């Protein structure tokens, strides 16, 4: 699904965020990206959906070299990727329903598909009863569920999440991780950058560890850190 070959990212200021990364993520995998602050986790995620371009190296998505994509091809790449952020990024003046249906309007889905699909995903994240609420009336965990519904509504091949539980308390974080696991079990590839040590340890998923831009560990059924 994703192949990364010799990717180095140096930001315009000269900051080296990633050094010679090589890795492969297969369809249906659940992958954690861990590492201390500034290790390059967010940068690696941003490279996947062409928010950033690598300075050197190639990235393939579904067999296509996305580093060669022209700007007008990028929207079609992103339609295959569901993206979730730490800060939810919901639209405050839209209802829960509208925040999700918005994602389908944006990709020019038909009205009929929208009316069929939105209630279905809201059901899946357990928020069907809050469809008419606005984000300000929801807890952080519920807001992140809306963001997950929005990321899922267009049936992406892969879901990428940059610290999806970073703003949530431990209990709510468990819920969200459970939901991500559930989404993965239904066939969607999931990539999560996370600081949440206990969560990562208990999930027993593949763990990629970054240190100062280098990939120092790639372990199936890994834990957050090998030290101690």
């Amino acid at each position: 699904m994703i192949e990364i070959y010799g990717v180095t990212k140096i930001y315009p200021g000269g900051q080296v965020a990633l050094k010679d990364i090589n890795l492969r993520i297969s369809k249906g995998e659940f992958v954690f990206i861990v590492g201390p602050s500034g290790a390059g986790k967010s940068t690696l995620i941003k490279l996947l959906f062409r928010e950033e371009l690598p300075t050197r190296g190639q990235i393939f998505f579904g067999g296509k070299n996305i580093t060669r994509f022209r700007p007008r091809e990028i929207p079609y790449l992103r339609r295959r990727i569901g993206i979730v952020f730490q800060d939810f990024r919901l639209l405050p003046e839209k209802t829960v329903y509208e925040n999700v249906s918005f994602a389908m309007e944006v990709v020019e889905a038909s009205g009929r598909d929208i009316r069929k699909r939105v209630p279905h995903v809201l059901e899946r994240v357990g928020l069907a009863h809050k469809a008419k609420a606005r984000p300000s009336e929801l807890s952080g965990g519920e807001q992140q569920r809306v963001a997950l519904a929005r990321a899922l509504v267009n049936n992406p091949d892969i879901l990428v999440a940059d610290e999806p539980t970073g703003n949530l308390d431990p209990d709510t974080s468990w819920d969200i991780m459970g939901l991500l696991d559930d989404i993965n079990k239904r066939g969607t590839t999931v990539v999560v950058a996370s600081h949440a040590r206990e969560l990562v340890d208990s999930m027993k998923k593949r763990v990629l560890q970054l240190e100062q831009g280098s990939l120092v560990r790639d372990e199936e059924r890994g834990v957050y850190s090998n030290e101690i």
Partner: protein
Amino acid sequence: MRFSTIKYFFKESFTSLVRNRWMSLASIGAVASALIILGSFLLLSVNFDHILKDVESQVEITAYLEDSLDQDGISRLDKDLAVITGIKEIKFISKEVAIEEFKEQVGRELLEGIDNPLPNSFRIKVNDPHEVASIAEKIEKFSGIDEVKYGKGVVEKLFNIIHWVRVIGLIIMAVFAAVSIFIISNTIRLTVFARRREINIMKYIGATDWFVRWPFLIEGMVLGLIGSSLAIGVLAAAYNYLYITVKLNLPMISLLPKEYFYDYALGFLGIGMLIGAFGSSFSIKRFLNV
């Protein structure tokens, strides 16, 4: 493009127009004022043009003939002159006709008993008033022609004035168009700014650049359309009033009939829309970065 998508674009544009209603009103007002000034100038210049065209078409050459030229010579010269390109009409004015016309003008009694001092002449009309000078020069070279007159200086001055009226008119129009574009682009910039979160999210979800642009373009065009409609209404009322007043009080000045105005109205709506589209695309390009 799907119907539901088009519906979405219009919904978004109008929501944003209403949400920023004060800014929308301000920019409609600004566009309307700019277009009213632009329109006033346009009307002034087309009317000025119209009046000057009247004058232009009256420009003619008078070629005085030598007294020694007999009837045969005159008709031969008439045929020779007719070969010059750019001449529309040659009319022979005999010295008798000329003195009659002169008497009409200055009063019969004054010239009673005086020998006719006026020569025979040709009165020549040309196709293009701009060629009067060069044609007059050619005519002067024929033998049998004594002197050529065509209001030298006056004609040149007139053309100079028309030329400058047009140049200044175009410059002022360009300036006002630019001002309108600037105002609209500022309004759209505000809506882009107010909606930058939404735009950011749209781009992560996979919206194409055009999908992001359309609502802003529509918003700009709607602002331009409303502004220009307002300007048309104001101008139509004012021109109607002016036309009637001039017709009653200054009958010798022929303004363009007010029906002409309706031809311009459609163009005006087009200009308003274009200004709106241009203003918003300018803003989108600079502030949306899509």
